[in-house]
């Protein structure tokens, strides 16, 4: 479903990804790991088209991303849910509205928005924080709001960037359970993380990056 072929990405002086080739199957749940600064976030951003590769080709559902017209980018993104490492929550909107935004953008009506947002909030155990503003939440709570926003639109692909960096092991396990459930409904999931606990003994594929190179592909 997602194909990287000889993809490289350079920032000014920094090479973030070097000649990366791999593919993720439809319905797969895969992990990307590697040291801090090894290129995990960059890789996810390339799939989301929020960065463009300098070399190589990336395709999703056999569609090459560099042939996409600008007006097709939002449509691509609507198929993908992204758990941003830096959260990107809007501090001038409460938790409910932050999550609802992902649905409003898709033109979904108010009634459906309401039920789906509350469902997502229940999934991450934050139903009671719906009226709070992000800057009044704890770090872990914010992270769970971001996860709720990513899954509320029921995307066909879910990209999660360090989704458990700010939560305790119990909450972390809960989040992984949620991901597994979503995966079971056919959603393709890619999780970037440095937390080995997440993929230990899962039997899932783990791609390891080192300084921009794809150095190994193992099973967790």
């Amino acid at each position, binding site marked *: 479903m997602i194909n990287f072929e000889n993809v490289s990405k350079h920032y000014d002086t920094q090479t973030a990804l070097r000649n990366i080739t791999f593919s993720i199957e439809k319905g797969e749940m895969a992990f990307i790991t590697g040291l801090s600064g090894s290129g995990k976030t960059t890789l996810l951003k390339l799939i*989301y*088209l*929020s960065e463009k590769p300098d070399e190589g080709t990336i395709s999703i559902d056999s569609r090459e991303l560099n042939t996409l017209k*600008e*007006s097709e*980018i*939002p*449509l*691509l*993104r*609507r198929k*993908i849910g*992204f758990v*941003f490492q830096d959260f*990107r929550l*809007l501090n*001038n909107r409460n938790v409910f509205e932050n999550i609802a*935004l*992902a649905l*409003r*953008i*898709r*033109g979904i009506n108010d009634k459906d928005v309401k039920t789906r947002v509350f469902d997502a909030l229940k999934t991450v155990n934050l139903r009671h924080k719906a009226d709070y503003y992000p800057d009044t939440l704890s770090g872990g709570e914010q992270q769970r709001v971001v996860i709720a*926003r990513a899954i509320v639109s029921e995307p066909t692909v879910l990209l999660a960037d360090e989704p458990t960096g700010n939560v305790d092991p119990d909450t972390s396990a809960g989040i992984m359970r949620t991901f597994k459930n979503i995966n079971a409904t056919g959603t393709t999931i890619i999780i970037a993380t440095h937390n080995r606990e997440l993929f230990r003994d899962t039997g899932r594929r783990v791609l390891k990056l080192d300084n921009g190179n794809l150095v190994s592909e193992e099973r967790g």
Partner: protein
Amino acid sequence: MATFAFRLALRSILHEKWINLLSILAIAASLLITALTVLSVYNVDVATQKLPERFSMMLYLKDKLSGGEVENIMNTLKKEHAVESVKYIPKDQALKELKTMLKGTDHVLEGLEENPLPDSIEIKLKKEAVGTETAQQLSTRLRETKGVDDVEYGEKFLFAISSIKTGVKTIGILFIMIMSASVIFVCYSTVKILFYRKKEEIETYKLLGATKGFIRAPFIIEGAFIGLSGGLLSLLGILLVYYIVIFRLSHTIPIFNALIFPANISFLLPPIGLSLGIAGAAIAIGRIRY
């Protein structure tokens, strides 16, 4: 989706009421000043446009010209570009007029045995010629004409009036230009600032998969709101000025009675504000790139 855009705009307007209020006030002030300037220029124009009609060029003819010679001069005059109309005034009529002018003291002229006044021709100049150099040249030229004794033309006074007119118009247009520019500037910078302030928000919208129209709509609505409110407020302002000037000041300062308020034009202010607001917003948002 359209209703959501309106809700977003309303949210932003309420949430950022402070900056919005400031912008509305600024736009209202600018529009008001522009409108007042337009009114001032318009009034000066109307006032000075009436003035020239009262002035004419007088041609005093030599004594005892024949009817044909007078006819001749009249025809020459009619051919002149700057001349609107000519009127022959025989000396008898002139004496009558002089007597009317001196009224109370007309015994001055009672002792006259013979009419000492000359025949004359009153020349009305075309409006646009009054006070110009063309008129001045014409008067010099006519003085040389056969059969003409003297030409009287209040050059200096008329020239001064024409100068004032040109001056007020020039300054007025300059002023209108400056103020119009400043309205656009305020609209533009307001939306730019609002847009700038929401940079992060817009970034997040884009990342979540919002289309360009979805992102733009609330800003356009907000710009329209600001512009329209500013326009309405300036209309209120001008009606207030109108009220004060016409109903209050004109009692004590009668000259204000002569002022003309084209009310219909004032009602153009809200739509002008609206258009400027939308235009400003559109320019400020500019091109959205993914």
